[in-house]
């Protein structure tokens, strides 16, 4: 650890106010803290765990749920998403999400780090603890995996009926227009050092009015240098809004615009392999520890809290779905139990580092029950064909989690409260204020993703057409789009 001299701290604050790409503290030169090897190793593993969630986890979870004639098309869609977004992320995605964006900084970053310009093995980014950093390449890789899985989640909504050429065009457009700005709005901020050092400068200024005014301006600049939802005070630990509500809404919009599968409601469309779905759901659970605990950005107590929450909320949600399904349908199904587990994972995502374990159990249990009601009742009543329940699990679970975070972060309910970097300790927690901030975040995400996704689906429809011909859809996308079949007995 390092000690901050008065002059050093104010110099950093002044520098921060001028250069602005504060998230990276590489500019702090000789005084810059160095990464801890434990934190670095932990974050590398977390990034790989999120990849495990996507391929093969999500791919098998989805693949088992479709008919065997479309198995490969779903696996292909998930794999393609990871491949294309990995490349786009380092070309311009990371820069759009995690740099200062000038005039439009509230909504999107700039291109100052396009092609990872200026990033070296010595570059570092701050975690959520003042004076703690990790290598920037590790942070880029970790966030890359989030950008990869989010568009892949959408694929479940229009599974079995979207041309691969349309999907191949939609994914790069969607991450560029919808995801990168959304990640910026929720996760981009000045970082602990800029805020804490500016606050310290105000205190140190004492009676010197000029110095104090300059320090206050620096603090205001540091606080203002954040994405829109972050500046609203919306809490999203690991991506409830950015990943799950975002993808869930895009999926719903896509399912409605593309239309129902041929034969929907008349022909049996039973999952072709619930065994694979169970393997996939289990890999999702395992990988989600990287997703949630890794979102602490360092191997410490917050990561540990996220880890225990990811165990118990998931278990409670699986039980919640199983119990209500048994009560209403007469039998507890495996598909129900694993669906409940995923709903719980989604719900605990924004809350993982804020809620206590007991709060997370309640959150998970509620999400399992509500998502069951949505998927097995409300969806049928509304009549749209969200093939694999992307909206019913990810958007609905994400909303429960986002709002629930505002309640369960309360210290009186075992939560952590919200850390105030200007005072260096947990601030007073006003539940109503926090819930309103969360609700604003949810509402904004619904509008942002809903409107922009609809435009992109329409655009892709005009350019290449979204759907295969009816005969092709009946034959199955594996043969028609990919020229191969999943199983040759």
């Amino acid at each position, binding site marked *: 650890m390092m000690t901050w001299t008065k002059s050093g701290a104010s110099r950093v604050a002044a520098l921060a106010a001028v250069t602005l790409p504060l998230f990276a503290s590489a500019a702090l030169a000789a005084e810059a803290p160095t990464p801890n090897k434990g934190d670095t190793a932990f974050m590398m593993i977390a990034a790989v765990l999120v990849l495990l969630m996507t391929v093969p986890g999500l791919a098998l979870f989805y693949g088992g749920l479709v008919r065997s004639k479309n198995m490969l098309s779903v696996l292909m869609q998930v794999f393609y998403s990871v491949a294309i977004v990995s490349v786009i992320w380092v070309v311009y995605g990371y820069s759009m999400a995690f740099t200062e964006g000038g005039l439009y900084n509230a909504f999107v970053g700039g291109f100052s780090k396009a092609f990872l310009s200026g990033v070296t093995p010595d570059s570092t980014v701050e975690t959520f603890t003042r004076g703690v950093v990790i290598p920037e390449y590790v942070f880029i890789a970790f966030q890359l995996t989030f950008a990869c899985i989010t568009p892949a989640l959408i694929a479940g909504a229009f599974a079995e009926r979207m041309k691969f050429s349309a999907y191949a065009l939609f994914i790069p457009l969607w991450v560029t227009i919808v995801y990168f700005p959304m990640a910026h709005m929720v996760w981009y901020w000045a970082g602990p050092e800029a805020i804490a050092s500016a606050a310290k400068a105000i205190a140190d200024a004492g009676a010197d009015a000029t110095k104090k005014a300059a320090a206050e301006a620096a603090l205001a600049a540091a606080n203002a240098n954040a994405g829109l939802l972050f500046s609203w005070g919306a809490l999203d630990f690991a991506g409830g809004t950015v990943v799950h509500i975002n993808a869930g809404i895009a999926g719903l919009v896509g399912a409605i615009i593309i239309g129902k599968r041929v034969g929907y409601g008349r022909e049996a469309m*039973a999952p072709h392999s619930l065994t694979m779905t169970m393997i996939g759901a289990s890999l999702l659970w395992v990988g989600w520890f990287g997703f949630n605990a890794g979102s602490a950005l360092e191997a410490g107590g917050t990561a540990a809290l996220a880890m225990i929450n990811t165990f118990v909320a998931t278990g409670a949600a699986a039980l919640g779905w199983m119990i209500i399904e048994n009560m209403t349908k007469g039998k507890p199904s495996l*598909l129900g139990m694993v669906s409940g587990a995923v709903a719980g994972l989604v719900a605990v995502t924004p809350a993982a580092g804020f809620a206590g374990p007991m709060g997370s159990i309640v959150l998970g249990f509620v999400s399992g029950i509500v998502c069951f009601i949505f998927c097995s009742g409300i969806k049928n009543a509304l009549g749209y064909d969200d093939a694999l329940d992307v909206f019913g699990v990810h958007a609905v679970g994400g909303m429960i989690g986002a709002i629930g975070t505002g309640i369960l972060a309360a210290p009186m309910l075992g939560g952590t409260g919200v850390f105030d970097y200007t005072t260096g300790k947990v601030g007073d927690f006003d539940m109503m204020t926090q819930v309103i901030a969360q609700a604003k975040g949810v509402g904004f995400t619904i509008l942002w993703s809903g409107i922009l996704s609809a435009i992109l689906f329409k655009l892709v429809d005009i350019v290449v057409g979204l759907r295969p011909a009816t005969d092709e859809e009946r034959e199955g996308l594996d043969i028609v789009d990919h020229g191969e079949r999943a199983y040759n007995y």
Partner: protein
Amino acid sequence: MKLITAVIKPFKLEEVRQALNDLGVQGMTVTEVKGFGRQKGHTEIYRGAEYAVSFLPKIKIEAVVASTDVDRAIAAITAAAKTGQIGDGKIFVSTIEKTVRIRTGESDLAAL
């Protein structure tokens, strides 16, 4: 010569095969089939989607025997395939005009 077509529960196949073998039946053809009788089907539920599965998996056995053996074969199949539960299956008997063994050219009873 008679063709015995028996539709039975899949897990009874081995017992029926053994019973016919014990009678001296030399061969049979087995097909995995689906169908329904009085047993009807069942309902499967995948999240919100409920499917009535009307056709249940069965095994169809076809064996040709000498006319004089038909009653004993029927008795053997009935005894072996019976569980007493609905859905045990059915036996159909029809007449066969001619049989030829391809390898040797033998015909009728000699070809069975």
